[in-house]
């Protein structure tokens, strides 16, 4: 076991003073290997607290680059990291924080081709990803490799935290089925309170450190729900599901799934797409056409196209009767998820002149200097 030189122990003195940690616990941390998948809002606090705690080896998997909109919550990055690889920039930051930590930067997509190999090299895995496909993949790889999966997930003001370990249920026992695409907005679509990522991420870091130290009661078999708006935490018991496809009595899954990841459902779409670059031409050629903007009013403070009819997705059902199936509509929202649902809803209601703006108004704004959305 890797142990701290006596001179380095001063750094961890506040850990050594806790009876539950002490020198033995600190030496466990120094010898531990933790993999963090996703270096975003959740990964940022997780990575920093693990490095500060002296975890011996930390792996960071993220194929994304730092974007300006990340900085509101992804506190491991500084302003001048924008455009850099997240895995590389976060690794640099951790090495600066604590040079004794070995940091492995993996600037690649965590997918079925590498999931088990990556997970196998570490003792504990922390899930800081932002999509259901990756969450099922982490869960499956962890269970198949016998590693605990420290799960955290956020949306707006709501956080979910649990630990999926060999002696308890897995993510598939808790949520056997992912929601249809578009039914649950992502942070990019629906927004997220920046500090909630910190609250949930630090909770995950705490669970990961407890697993290494072998102290306390891990959040196994329990789902914690954090409501940051009401300042409430609730806990629900989760039992192992004997019908679980992964860890049930007759499992159907024996290996990680190739792309597309299990648990995601391809959106059903009959509606023709219009590329953002073709929108102006389409509107010129169809003088009767209207842009049907399904953003919520608070999202639509910037960037309204001419000939727009605003029908927010939240009241779409009630206002469906206001729409005319003879009018060509181009259904649009910010990134194209809510609008795809709304366009399909119109199609199902018999509208055959409906089109969908691919990539949403963000994609349109990328090529239109005078048009801006956020």
């Amino acid at each position: 076991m890797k142990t701290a030189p006596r001179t380095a122990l001063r750094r961890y003195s506040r850990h050594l003073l806790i009876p539950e940690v002490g020198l033995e616990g600190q030496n466990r941390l120094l010898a531990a290997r933790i993999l963090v998948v996703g270096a975003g809002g959740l990964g940022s606090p997780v990575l920093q607290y693990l490095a500060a705690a002296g975890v011996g080896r930390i792996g960071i998997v993220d194929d994304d680059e730092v974007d300006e909109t990340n900085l509101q919550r992804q506190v491991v990055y500084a302003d001048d990291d924008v455009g850099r690889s997240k895995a590389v920039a976060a690794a640099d930051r951790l090495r600066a924080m604590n040079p004794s930590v070995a940091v492995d930067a993996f600037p690649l997509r965590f997918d079925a081709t590498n999931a088990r190999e990556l997970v196998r090299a570490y003792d504990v895995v922390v899930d800081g990803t932002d999509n259901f496909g990756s969450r099922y993949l982490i869960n499956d790889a962890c269970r198949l490799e016998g590693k605990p999966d420290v799960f955290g997930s956020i949306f707006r003001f709501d956080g979910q935290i649990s630990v999926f370990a060999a002696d308890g249920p897995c993510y598939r026992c808790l949520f056997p089925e992912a929601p249809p695409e578009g039914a649950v907005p992502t942070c990019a679509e629906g927004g997220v309170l920046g500090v909630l990522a910190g609250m949930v991420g630090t909770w995950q870091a705490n669970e990961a450190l407890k697993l290494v130290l072998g102290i306390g009661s891990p959040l196994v078999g329990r789902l914690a729900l954090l409501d940051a708006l009401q300042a409430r935490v609730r806990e629900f018991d989760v039992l192992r599901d004997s019908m679980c496809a992964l860890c049930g009595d007759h499992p159907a899954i024996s290996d990680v799934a190739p792309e597309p990841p299990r648990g995601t459902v391809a959106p059903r779409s009959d509606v023709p797409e219009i590329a953002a670059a073709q929108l102006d031409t389409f509107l010129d050629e169809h003088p009767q056409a209207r842009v049907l903007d399904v953003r919520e009013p608070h999202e639509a403070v910037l960037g309204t196209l001419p000939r727009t009819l605003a029908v927010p997705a939240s009241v779409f059902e009630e206002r469906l009767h206001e729409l005319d199936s003879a009018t060509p509509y181009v259904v649009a929202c910010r990134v194209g998820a809510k609008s795809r649902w709304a366009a399909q809803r119109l199609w199902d209601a018999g509208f055959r002149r409906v089109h969908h703006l691919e990539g949403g108004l963000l994609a349109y704004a990328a090529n239109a200097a005078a048009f801006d959305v956020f």
Partner: protein
Amino acid sequence: MAANISVRVLAFARVRELLGCAEWTLQLPPGATVADAWEALAERAEPLRALASSTRLAQNGRIVDGGAPLHDGDEVALLPPVGGG
């Protein structure tokens, strides 16, 4: 005829947004199940149906199958998956 049972419903995340409120008290016929409580709410907020197969239901703090029978005074929680990070 037996009296209706009263059930307190707690909604979280996307389900709370679609319902427009965090707590609800439902009157259900005797013999109603956890799934019946969901159905009663989905009738008031149709967009909930898109989340029917992914949302888990808890009864008095424990996640259960939809067929679990309800009793007067039970608390039902609607727990949709949350994906962001």
